[in-house]
């Protein structure tokens, strides 16, 4: 077992069974997991809460994975999204990365790999947040020149 990571994760997949089991396993590894079975639901959840990472299935009925990814990225550009797919196609992977996903995993994925990617995503996110804060501090420092 890898070291425990404390992170808020949102799982998006149309297969409820998959969601249930994966979230249980992730919770077992100390993550806080939220799930949604469609892109629309995920969009709603993202509005209300700040996630460290989102694991998003590429092939879903209704709003597709790519579509969901684009919508989330447009509203929350600093969210870290990891794509997951049953279609092991490089083409789709490239498309997803271009659309702003941080990483790409093929189903069935190894748990350790998922954990790795999540921790990586979290690190990036922390960095981003810190940079933002830094920038804010700088701004404050510059604007309020006392």
């Amino acid at each position, binding site marked *: *077992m890898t070291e425990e990571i404390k992170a808020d994760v949102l799982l998006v997949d149309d*297969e409820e*069974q*998959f969601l249930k*089991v*994966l979230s*249980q*396993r992730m919770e*077992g*590894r100390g993550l806080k997991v939220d799930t949604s079975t469609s892109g629309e639901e995920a969009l709603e959840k993202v509005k209300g809460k700040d996630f460290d990472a989102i694991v998003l299935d590429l*092939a879903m009925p209704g709003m597709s994975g790519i579509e969901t990814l684009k919508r989330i990225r447009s509203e929350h550009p600093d969210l870290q999204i990891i794509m997951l797919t*049953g*279609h*092991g*196609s*490089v*083409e789709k992977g490239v498309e997803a990365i271009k659309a702003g996903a941080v990483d790409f995993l*093929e*189903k*069935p*994925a190894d*748990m350790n790999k998922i954990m790795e990617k999540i921790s990586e995503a979290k690190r990036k996110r922390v960095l981003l947040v810190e940079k933002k804060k830094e920038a804010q501090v700088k701004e404050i420092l510059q604007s309020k020149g006392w």
Partner: protein
Amino acid sequence: MSEHNEQEEEKNKKPKIYNFLRVLFHPHDFLGILSEDRYKSLKIRIVLIEAMLSLLPLFIVVTISYFWFQQILKDDFKNQLKWELENTKQSIEFFLEERVSILRFITSSYTHEQLSDQRTLSDIFTKFKREFPGLVDIGVIDADGIQRTYSGPYRLAGADYSDQTWFNEIVIRSSNLSDVFMGFRKIPHFAIAVKREVPDKGTFWILRATIDMKTLQKYASAINIRENDDVFIINREGVLQTPSRFHGNVLEQYKEIFSFPEDNLSIKEAGQSEGTCDICGYAPIKNTPWILVAVIRSSPYAKIPNIFRNELFFITIISVFFSIAVTIALVQTVVNRIKKADQAREAAIAETEHAGKMASIGRLAAGVAHEINNPLAIINEKAGLMKDILEGSRDMQQNREKFLSLISGIFDSINRCRTVTHRLLGFSRRMDISHDTIDINDALKEVIEFLEKEIIYRNIRLDLDLKKDLPRVVTDKGQLQQVFLNIINNAIDAVEEGGLIQISSYSKDEHFVRVSIKDNGRGIPRDKLKHIFEPFYTTKEKGKGTGLGLSISYGIVQRLGGSIHVESEVNKGTTFFVDIPILSETV
């Protein structure tokens, strides 16, 4: 599907053409050998039909001209015969007229009383005979038919002719020519009688001369005749007046049935089968009861000059030979072209079929892989959860190990499935091709290095024949190496320990570099050979091969714009040929 229909339609068409040809030409049926190779039999049939079409008219023309020529010769001969008969007839007429004139002259020059004198008659007879040979005797007959005076070799003075037909006739006419007869003299002869009226006394007397038949015969034999021909004279009743060669002697009946010609000379033709002559000429002699007959049996006209016949024969043979040679050459070319076109078409159909099959299998594979991946993910996660739970709990210590090993078994299976589905997806995937400029030999060597351990371990001899200075090719090195790896791997699996693998590279032509990988392994049977590029087709033992290596290789080579094909003989080995384009075009 439409292709299938087209094939069936073609199958229906073919028998129609076959039947048509069969009706047109039969030898195909009873010469069973012809049907073995349909192109060969087509050739033979066309040659036969062509030969028939061209030779038949030739033979007809030759035959017609031959008989036509014969007919001309025959007509020519007939004219010649006619002319000869005419001549002879005129000679005989002239001869007889002359005799009649002389007798007239005597009767008008001398009186009955003068001629009744034996000495005067003998004198006339002697002079007459000297000038005109053939005269037998001469006599004076009175109105009662009694021969009063006679001069000649016989004793016929006082002979009574009153009951003879010629006498009765001459009473009415002024002169008479008798048929040939034996008479008292017992030699064939004929008589010319001239009547002299004595108007003041109301009576008449007759001067009669008999002439030897031989004189007449001389004229008849003047006609130029050949061995089987016959010329003779008959009277109106068909009694022979001169001896003939084949139709009996003098005074015998001429046996051939014929209708007597009226007055004119006529040439008649009769069939050989009727037992008569080929050509018969009849020339009635004017003012006589006689007909000059020529029977020509030798048919000299049938003998067509050798030159003409040889020429005809020669020309015919040359024409036959030439037309058959030309026909064979033409047919050879045409049928070979048809054969090539057929083969090309069949190959093209097979290729498109194969490509279509591969494409549809690819789509199917992608679908299957995707559908399997999702439940596989669930199994994976569930097994993972079980493992997590077991690892986390301290209870049920005894079953823990057992459970963990079972779960790891599940993971192994999932991993195996994963590789299969991933390769399947790779099969259908349209990957981006990188363009590296590489040396094929270097790429090959790298692959071989990779496999070297296995080769050494199994004591396999590796024979490398790599042409130097091969043009460098622009292609995807990694993918091409995967192809080589697959094929060489297969070769290693195919050979026994101590087997031989030969790898060679050379320029196939200006556009392609060819790599051939040959093993002396067990080979692939013909029926299996056509399936080896299909996905999931494997001859390896279960679990060893996925049946995807060659199909993926096939796909890669196609995408690189090259081609791959295989030749194999059972127990002798298999050779794979990979043609790589020097300038890769991305398909």
